[in-house]
């Protein structure tokens, strides 16, 4: 039994040095256990390159936004190609950036451009909403007053430069192999981000009697991502075929040139580029990554790609029936609300065999 009663005796046996070692030793033991560390989750996320994992570990808050941005791109891709034989799907493991196409086709070009733009878009949006540390509103666009035009910067201008730079740092880190495909992907990533930068909008708010514009404050905002989707879809249709040129010394692909062009003409920065021709995406094919069109919905009457004839590649289709319910005949009632009826209809859907 030890009961401290005599302080004097205790003071005589006092070794400060040993004590300090003891203290520092037990500090380590005190560090708290985190439930689930970012390290281990980041190591398990499928489809990340080593440098991307490092970013993930140091900025777990940013990886969430990146994931959302990539998903934004994937969803938009699926929307844009909802009527095509290729509906933005591919065989293989689902990664952060969706399922990857093996062939360096126009479709692959589109997916790279749209995910790079999606990440830049999401990061910029998260910055201006205050959801991400280290960034915020565009500091350059503050306070400036244009007397002639009668407006000044106000509110929170989206910092698209930061978003684009972040996308460049993260998305481009995915290209680790030194091959032609790398050059193609990097080019398309950049093209996607360029589209976003070009489409930034100036929005203004008028201060005056309801709706009048005697004075106004303005700020830049992100475009709706749908708009980016449409622009990139156009670029997809006008994509140009390129080939890689090997530098003489290193025997490695070092830049791209237009296949149809004369001499060493480089593709324009804003164009989407591809290396190989696309497969027809009719059947499931592991070598190209095509998922095939079996089970896809098709339009019985359409003569276009969403029509059953083209979509099903001549295999024919199945018919299913169901009842559709929606709000209809909405009318404004005095006073003051909008009244709708509920309508229903028996409809048929068709899927490819």
């Amino acid at each position: 039994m030890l009961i401290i009663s005599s302080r004097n005796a205790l003071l005589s046996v006092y070794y400060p040095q040993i004590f300090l070692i003891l203290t520092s030793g037990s500090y380590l033991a005190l560090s708290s256990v985190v439930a689930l560390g970012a390290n281990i989750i980041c190591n398990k996320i499928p489809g990340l390159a080593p440098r991307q994992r490092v970013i993930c570990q140091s900025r777990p808050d940013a990886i969430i936004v990146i994931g959302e941005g990539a998903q934004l791109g994937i969803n938009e891709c699926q929307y844009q190609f909802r009527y095509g034989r290729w509906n933005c799907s591919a065989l293989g493991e689902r990664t952060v950036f969706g399922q990857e196409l093996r062939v360096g086709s126009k479709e692959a070009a589109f997916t790279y451009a749209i995910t790079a733009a999606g990440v830049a878009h999401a990061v910029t949006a998260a910055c201006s909403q205050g959801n991400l540390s280290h960034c915020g509103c565009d500091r350059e666009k503050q306070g400036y007053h244009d007397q002639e035009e009668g407006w000044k910067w106000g509110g929170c201008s989206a910092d698209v430069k930061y978003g684009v730079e972040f996308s460049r740092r993260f998305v481009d880190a995915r290209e680790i192999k030194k091959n032609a495909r790398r050059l193609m992907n990097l080019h398309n990533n950049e093209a996607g981000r360029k589209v976003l930068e070009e489409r930034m909008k100036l929005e203004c708010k008028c201060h005056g009697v309801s709706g009048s514009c005697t004075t106004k404050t303005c700020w830049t905002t992100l475009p709706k991502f749908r708009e980016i989707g449409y622009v990139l879809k156009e670029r997809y249709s006008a994509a140009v075929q390129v080939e890689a040129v090997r530098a003489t010394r290193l025997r490695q692909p070092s830049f791209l040139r237009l296949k149809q062009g004369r001499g060493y003409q480089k593709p324009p920065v804003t164009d989407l580029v591809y290396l190989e021709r696309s497969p027809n995406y009719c059947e499931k094919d592991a070598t190209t990554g095509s998922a095939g069109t079996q089970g896809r919905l098709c339009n019985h009457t359409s003569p276009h790609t969403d029509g059953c004839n083209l979509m099903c590649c001549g295999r024919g289709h199945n018919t299913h029936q169901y009842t559709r319910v929606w709000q209809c005949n909405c009318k404004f009632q005095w006073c003051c609300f909008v009244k709708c009826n509920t309508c229903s209809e028996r409809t048929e859907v068709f899927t490819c065999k």
Partner: protein
Amino acid sequence: MGLIRNLTGDQACCHYAVEVPQCREACEQLATIRSESRLKHFLQRLPGYCPESMTELWTCINSSLPGVPQKPEGWVGLGCCELAISPDCRRECKQASSKNDITKVCKKDTEKPLYKCITKNEMGSVCCSYAGRHTNCREYCQAIFRTDASPSASQIKAVEDYCQSVSPQLISCVSNYTKSYPNKTPKDSLYCCDAAEEAHCQTSCKHILRTMTTEHEIIEGLIKECRSEPLPQDPLWQCFLGNANPPPPEPEKPPKKIDWAKLHCCSKANTSQCRDMCQDVSTNWDTQTWQEFDQLCEYNPVETDLITCLADVREPCQLGCNDLAYCTNFNNRPTELFRSCNVQSDQGAMNDIKLWSNGTIRMPFMNIPVLDIRKCQPDMWKAVACALQIKPCYSKSRGSIICRSDCVDILTQCGDRKRFREGMTPERICDLLSPTDDPERCIPLERYLKPSSLGNFIEEVIHPCNPNPCPSNYLCEVNRKGCHVGQDCLPYLCVPGCKLGEASDFLVHMDTRVQVPAQNAGLGCYNVCTCSPSGRLENCAPMPCIDTGKKCMVGGQAKSHGTSFRVNCHPCSCYAGEIVCSHRECLSSDSTDDQRRHFTGLPCGCPNNFLPVCARNGRTYPTACVARCMGFNDSHFHFGTCHTSNPCSYNPCSRDKRCVPRRRVCLTDTSEFPCRQYECVSRPPSCDKTQLDPVCDTDNMEHPNLCMLYQRGKTLAYLGHCQDACRKPQEVCGHNGETYGTICEAYSERVAVDYHSPCYAVGAVAEHPSDSGCNPKHCPPLSTKGCKPVTPPGACCPLCAGMLQILWNKQQMNAFAKLNRNQPVTLHDILRILRLHVSVPQCDIFGYLSIDSEIVILIVPVDQTPTPLQIEACSKEAEKIDSLINYGSPTLVSHVPLSAFLTSEVKVSTISSSALPAASPLPLCLSLPLLLLLLTLVGAPWGL
């Protein structure tokens, strides 16, 4: 006996060393040392860091070291023996006299719960030994350590109450324990599991976090069970990633993620512990306090106000339920209130039933063994699961609880008695889960055992924003203005809004101003911010802080800040030590019958003549006597109504601008913030043609918005579409005592019509009207037969509507005006914001400032001949808003200037039962004696 037994207690002593950092640091090491010899060594050196003058510290350390008298009743771990897994260990534990006796039989790695419990009890015995011979204090202290769950807030409070005077050491020792409990474990991330999309994944996630310990195991388990690789776009993994601390080298701390709406609620906590924890949870979303908060506060009856407030922010109580696929009996109920009528909860109910079919209902603090619920009362169980998920709520109690008799009933029939813990009966379980019997506070299951009696004729009352059709970051607003020609016209609009803090899901409208608790400041300090077009709260300015600790003395009783009470006929509220009461005129008990008969309730006992004067707050008062009584001196009002006087007659505007009358009633001080009745407009050079806010000019021509009307040089008649009914002038008298040219003009100012002629009299203001100049013959017939009408104060005619009388704080209104560039706060501001809270398009909001300066709100069916169901819906809307005001719910009082509301009284029109559709379930159920029993679950569903 080993030293280890008491070591943990030492840490409690260290707070005596706060002022000497080196001593504190050294002291804290004490608790981490595991070997006896090292400890001896260490203690010998301690005085070098902690001088002997620190008597309190040393007394504390001495007393927590071995040698303190042991309790006679068995050894310290005796209460834990039931936790032993192997029977041998259990037997050994019961016979032991110290921990050393069991170490051979009870393996440390297999009997973890047992050893954890023993450690806890050891700590308890140290703490509680401070109680000495004070048995009450000791018993409450021991109770804290005895439970196998974490101690409840009420238990902690009891210790504080009983031991404060006995031993401050004990209090600090106990609070040291309660603060550190529980340790940071994977369990703190349990809330992440709710983010998983699949129910199967949710359950296995919780199981995994509860049972596995290493990160690696957990992640492998999650990947396997949820069949998903950790993708950062998956909400489940997002939650874990967001929760994960970046590894140590990261120099910066992640910014605080604040939820202002929840922070608002924290002031409602009754215990300081829950308040601190609530603030922690709301200001720093990344913290691990969640689980702790759930355990200590979420199920604590003392904290009902706090929990209800949080529930209101998370899932506001809204009218109507529809579109459910599993809980179909909840569909088509447009006049009942629900918190969570959506597809996810519907799915959740189905999953709960699946889980319960395994024979056990898992609750956060107990497991209830049940028979096969697929055979025993399956309909009842379905109703239970649905009720707990869909969460019907009442405007008065606001909790979602099942009635006690239902609970007893179903457990008596389907509880598996053989597996009940000793001493458990259905009644006891139900007492714990559902302490209330009040039919206005619990959900009678009977109501949901069959489909709604209304059938499918839901067109009468709709609720387009419930379930919410808008994407996140968008607010759903009832469409009350129609659409551009040729556009898709839906009964709702999705408008962008601002989150109330990064971590909040609660949105406010753009350009509105909100009041949020100031960070790093006291409880009564708030900032007023604007929701800017970028979707963030900006331009925050501090309000003057108020002292919420100050109490009001009323009739010898102390009332705390924010409480409401009545003095005579006055509703009153205590605001920072000041009593704010209405200006009503009350009858005293010694009034004669004659006085009673002639009592009108007009202020200062003024006669009920009608010789209107217009005061400079923009309101018309019936006589000069009343205006004087309300504090206006003779230069502050002029004869005639406010609408007949022309504010532009002496043209106050500069030459290039046009003077346009703009009538308003100001709630702020008129000398400090002038209540201008006009506006100077220049002919605007450009207008936004796409902005749809139709207005009608005096020539009956419609313009898309006000700007276009001015651009065309026209004069405004009323806001809204031009109406055929208002083509010809037909004078009406509004409830505010103003005569309007047409109904449309009155509606445009959000004033409801009293009767169809120019105003000629003032009605009774008192609650029991007796004498007034009104002639009932002039009143229009009631809109619906069988409705019990309400008569607004000062009005002549009754109407079928829901009515609120709101007491408000002028001081606060003035503060808001000061922060808003000295713009006065008007009644219209209030109506505009309150209108957004009316979720049924068949009801609209009107209001006026009563003669005695209360805000009167009417929620009226918009249909000319409303159905009983529509009147009921409007009444429910009124009750909903009333309770939001009286509970000070942040969903309402975050909005400036509604934050200045103090208390509200509601009166609603009821429909006599003969007028209702045949089998309305509501009144029937309330009369049944069967339906009383409940399960207190506001936030979390039953189940794992």
